[in-house]
Every structure is written in structure tokens, then in C-alpha cells.
């Protein structure tokens, strides 16, 4: 098992057990940075193409730094209390989370028996299942954003697993990264309004 993959699994799983938004955001940041690192190691030839570099900037700078930092600054400025459970804090939820990881490894073994990239696939599936677990268990906007960003990271991991040696057209790679960046902007905008809504909401008025 590759050390980087183990580290990524760690930053995927550990924040689930700590009900604090700072830990969740640090976890997201670590996921992004590890993604960039894995991308550069997994297929070094990708960096011969502009699309490879765009992917690297997307993973490292946008997912690893910009997205978590944007949320962090907003939540700090609003003095949001640190406690934020991404899954219900009980043995059942934690058991489900660990079950997701075990299931991911079983599925990966079935889908890619004996393949060298087996661990990366298992970690990708675990990331996806944990993202969905968070989304299905929580209705608070912050937890939902964390769930969505985890799913986006999982899809990026799948992409890494699938695309070794293949290079996307630069326009499409740029579009995908731009779409993620705009998503982050939207998440911030909604979070600012949903965490502490402006006063005077719910007045009845005419609409188009």
C-alpha cells in the first residue's frame, strides 16, 4: 500500500470522528494537497501537457488552499461555533463510516483484481461513499458543502485512476476546473447567507 494513499485515507476518515468545522476544512485542504501530490507521482508524463498543469493547480491551489481557506475565513469572521458534526456523533454513524471504507476495499478488489492501482481505486470509492454518507446524514449547509467537496475530490481521484497516460483536451480540463472554482464561489455565497441569515427575511412580496 502506497504511503500517499494511506495518508489520503487518513485525511478522509479522521475528520469524520471529530465534530469541528476547522478539522473538516483542514481535512479538505489535506485532501486537495495530497491529490496534487498523487497526480504528479501517478502520471508524471501528464505534466508534459498544459492540461496536466491545470489539473495540478486545480488540486493543489484551488481544492487544497482556496476552497477551504475561503470557508475558514468566512466562518471565522462570523464567529461560528467550532462544533459541527459531519455525521451524527454515535457508534452507528461511525460504524457506517468504517463500513464504507471496508466496502470500498472489497469493491476495488472485485473491480481491479491484482491491479497496481488497486489502493488508489479503493481510496477513491471510500472518498465517494463517505461524501455521500455526510450528505445523507446532515442538513446543515456547512456539512453539505463539506460532503459535496468530498464528492468532487472523490471524482477527481477516479479521474486520476482512469486517465493514466491519457490527456484531456486543454479546453475541457480548463472548463472542468473553472466549474469547480465557480461552485466554490457559489458555496461561499450561500454559506454567508445561510449560516447567519440577514434580518427581515420572509416578508411577502410580488414576484416575477
Amino acid at each position, binding site marked *: 500500500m502506497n504511503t500517499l494513499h494511506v495518508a489520503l485515507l487518513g485525511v478522509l476518515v479522521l475528520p469524520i470522528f471529530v465534530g469541528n468545522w476547522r478539522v473538516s476544512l483542514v481535512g479538505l485542504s489535506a485532501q486537495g494537497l495530497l491529490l496534487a501530490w498523487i497526480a504528479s507521482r501517478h502520471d508524471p508524463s501528464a505534466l508534459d501537457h498544459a492540461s496536466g498543469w491545470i489539473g495540478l493547480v486545480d488540486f493543489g491551489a484551488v481544492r487544497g488552499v482556496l476552497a477551504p481557506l475561503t470557508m475558514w475565513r468566512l466562518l471565522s469572521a462570523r464567529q461560528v461555533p467550532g462544533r459541527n458534526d459531519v455525521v451524527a456523533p454515535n457508534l452507528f454513524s461511525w460504524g457506517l463510516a468504517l463500513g464504507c471504507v471496508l466496502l470500498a476495499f472489497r469493491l476495488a478488489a*472485485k*473491480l481491479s483484481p491484482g491491479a497496481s492501482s488497486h489502493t488508489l481505486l479503493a481510496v477513491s470509492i471510500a472518498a*465517494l461513499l463517505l461524501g455521500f454518507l455526510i*450528505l445523507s446524514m446532515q442538513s446543515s*449547509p456547512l456539512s*453539505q458543502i463539506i460532503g*459535496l467537496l468530498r*464528492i*468532487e475530490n*472523490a*471524482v477527481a481521484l*477516479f*479521474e486520476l*485512476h*482512469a*486517465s*493514466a*497516460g*491519457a490527456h484531456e483536451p486543454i479546453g*475541457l480540463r480548463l*472548463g*472542468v476546473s473553472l*466549474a469547480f472554482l*465557480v*461552485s466554490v464561489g*457559489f458555496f461561499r455565497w*450561500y454559506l454567508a*447567507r*445561510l449560516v447567519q*441569515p440577514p434580518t*427581515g*427575511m*420572509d*416578508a*411577502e*412580496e*410580488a*414576484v*416575477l
Partner: protein
Amino acid sequence: MILVLLVALPVVVAAIVAVARMREELEWVLVLTGAGVTLVSWAVAASGELEWAPLLLRADAPARLFLAFVNPIFFGIAVYVWGRVDAVPALKEQLPTFVPASLLLLAAVDLVFIADHLVLAWLALEASTFAAAPLVIRRAHRASLLASWSYLVFSGVALSLTFLGFTLVSRSLGAHDLPADFSLAALEGLATSTTDDWGRLGVLVLLLGLGTKLGLAPMYSWLPETYDEAPPATVALLASVQFNASLLVLVRVVHAFGPAHASLIVMVLLGLGLASVAVSTAGVVATRSFKRLVAFASINHAGVIAIGLGIGGEAAYGLFLYVMSNAFTKAILFLTVGKIKAHYHTKDARQVTGLLQNLPYSAIFLMVGTFALLGFPPFGSFFGELLILSGLAAGEHMTVFVVFCVLITMTFVATGRTIFPMIWGEGTQPANWPKQTLWSSWPKAVFFIALVVLGLYIPSSANELIHSVAALVGSQR
């Protein structure tokens, strides 16, 4: 070049409105741009197959069909907005947000139609979501903010799943040393090689992702919430314009992967479709909100479309007839229920009676819209549903056929029980509103005429286009 105009015209106008901070005459800007794009789309539809920059933009038969009926609906909604602003001048304040966002939505939807590459279509669908999300929000109304958030979250999940589907399919192609090329022309040849576990998983995830974007069960809960809270013009844009963009991507996926994964596609689409019809029936029976009822009916329609797409074959012609009728019906109904809610200040059907006396044109449109919704003749939805039902029977899906008929009958009774007393009941509120003029309702009147035309006589050129699209999709199974 004319294909570029379809996307560039609304984008440029939206940019000018936003950058120049225009606040005056915006309703005219919206109407004129809508008219311009409609004319361009009709020119494209009449031109035959067009291409711009190979593998980027192409107007094939499905693209031309969707362009030809979706753009006029946008134009009709623009005229409705102009009428609303004319009647309630205070609404002008909402136009600086509404106009650029709705024009960007139109550009993104048109780009989905003409994209010659599935990933480009996916990107355009994502852009249409970004443009639509702010439109759901009503100022100073927290419930609509939450609905908008819910829409964005579910769309995010749907589009992430769709992209994951592409990734899994490309893994399957990679296993056969084939390039992961998602241009439509290349995919037709490549998709037959995706018969391994990765390919099957990829197609399954693609169907789930696009199904969620369409509002199909199991991830449908965003739809009634969003359609219930958003302003009527926005709901009409979502239900009649953006819905068709998501649908065309699903049609293209089914077309590309149909030959290699026929049984999987039939099973998944029939399952999703029937589940959607079931949950929507439960929703229609339970709700007392007329706006939410129409929203649940939209899930029902999406379910019928999924079933029609699943069985394909001879039902494909009926499917596209149903898709077109559905777009006009939803535009009529959402604009009408919005107007009724604006007058009565309630969404509770039990508190709205005597519409024929109080709001005669709204009553008539609610009535004909409901008849079209329920699949009455002579509307296109009747013939569409009939062909889909006969396709189910001919395809030996008798269990689905029986369950579907039972659910549709329940929906029929529950809808009539809620809607008809609103129309024919005794008026209990003083009717001191301004007199309704037919002029203010003419977009809905045009939609109504289109519905009747689809049921009685379709011009030969349009009919040929529908047949060619149906042959393309139907031939895969």
C-alpha cells in the same frame, strides 16, 4: 457561424446588461433577445445538419428539434415577464438580476443542445445550473433561499455523478486501449466496447446522475421544494427550458450506449420512471397546495419520459411528442398557478374558489393545462402517452404497464379533486382585482395553440424532424 450566434447573442446581451448596470427597459431587452434567439433557432432547425468547429458544435436532428420548441418557450416566458412588469411596475427592481441570469441560462441550454461533445454538454449543463440558482431566490424570503440551496446541492450531486459516469466509461475504454473520446461521432463507435464492469457501472452512474438532474426518484426531493418556492417565471424556465437540456443529454447517452447496454438501460430507466410516477402520485394525493401539485406532476412527467426512453422502439415517436407537449403544458401551468397565487396570496387549493368569475383567463388556462397534464385529447400529451403505453404493452412489460395505469388513474382522480373545485367552485372572495385582458395572457394562449397543434396536425417539416429523432433513439433497442 449561426450556431455560435445562438450562444453568443444572449451571452453578449447579458454581459452588456450586467456591465453597464442597465436598469431601464430591461423587459424589452429580454423580449427582443428572446425573439432574436428564437428566430436564429428556427433558422438552424430549418437548415438541416450544421457544424461549427468539428467536434465542438453541431446541430443534428435532436438538437434542431429541441432548439425549435425550447427557444420559443423562453420567448413566451420573456413576454410573460414583460406583462408582469407592466402590470406591477415595482417588479422592475428584480429585472437587473433576472434578465442577465435568465439570458445566461438560455445560452447554456442552447449550448447543451448543440454541443458535439458530451463533456462540453455537461459543462453547459453546469453553467445553466449556476445561472438558474440565483433565479430561484425571492428577495427577503428565507424559504426560497433554502430551496435555491437545495437545488444547487442536488444539481451538484447530479452533475458530479454524471462526470463520474464519464470517468468510469473512460476507464472502460482505457482497458481496451481505446481513447476516452466523448465527442458524439466518436462515441457511437467506441461505446460498443464498454461492455465490461467499468462500462456497465459508468452507464448506471450516468443514468442516475442525469435522472437526478431531471427530478427522477430516488433523488427527487429538491424538485417540489424548488418549484414550490421559486417565482413562476423561474419555475417555467426550469421546468420547460432547463429540463429539456438535461433530457437531451440523457437521450444522447441512451443513444450512444443503447446498443451495448440495452438491457441495463431498459431496466434502470423503467425502474427510475416507475418509482418517480409512484412518488409523484403519493405527492399529488397528499398535497393541498396547487403549486406543489403541479410540481409533483412534473416528477410524474419526468417518470413517463424515462419509461418512454427506456422502452424506445415504436414508442420513441410518442416520447418526443410527449416531451414537447410536456414543455408547453408546464409553461402554461406554472405561469398560471403563479398568477393565481399572486392574486389570492395563498397556495392552499381549498382557499381558492370561483376562478372562472374572479380570474377567467387564468381559470381557462388552468383548466386546459390540467386536461393536457392528465393526458386528455386532443392534446399532444394524449397521443404521446398512448404511444408510450402501447410501447409498454408491445414490449411485454405488462407488469410495468398495469402498475403505471393504476398510478396514472390515481393521479387523475387526485388532481381533479384538488384543481376542479378551484375553477368551478363558488367565488368566496371579493373580486376587486384589475380586469384580466386576453393580451396579458397571450404567451399562454400561444402555448395552448402549440399543444393543440401537436395533438391534431403537426406541420410536415416538424413531423419529419420528430420522426428522424425518434428513429435515431428508437432504433437502438
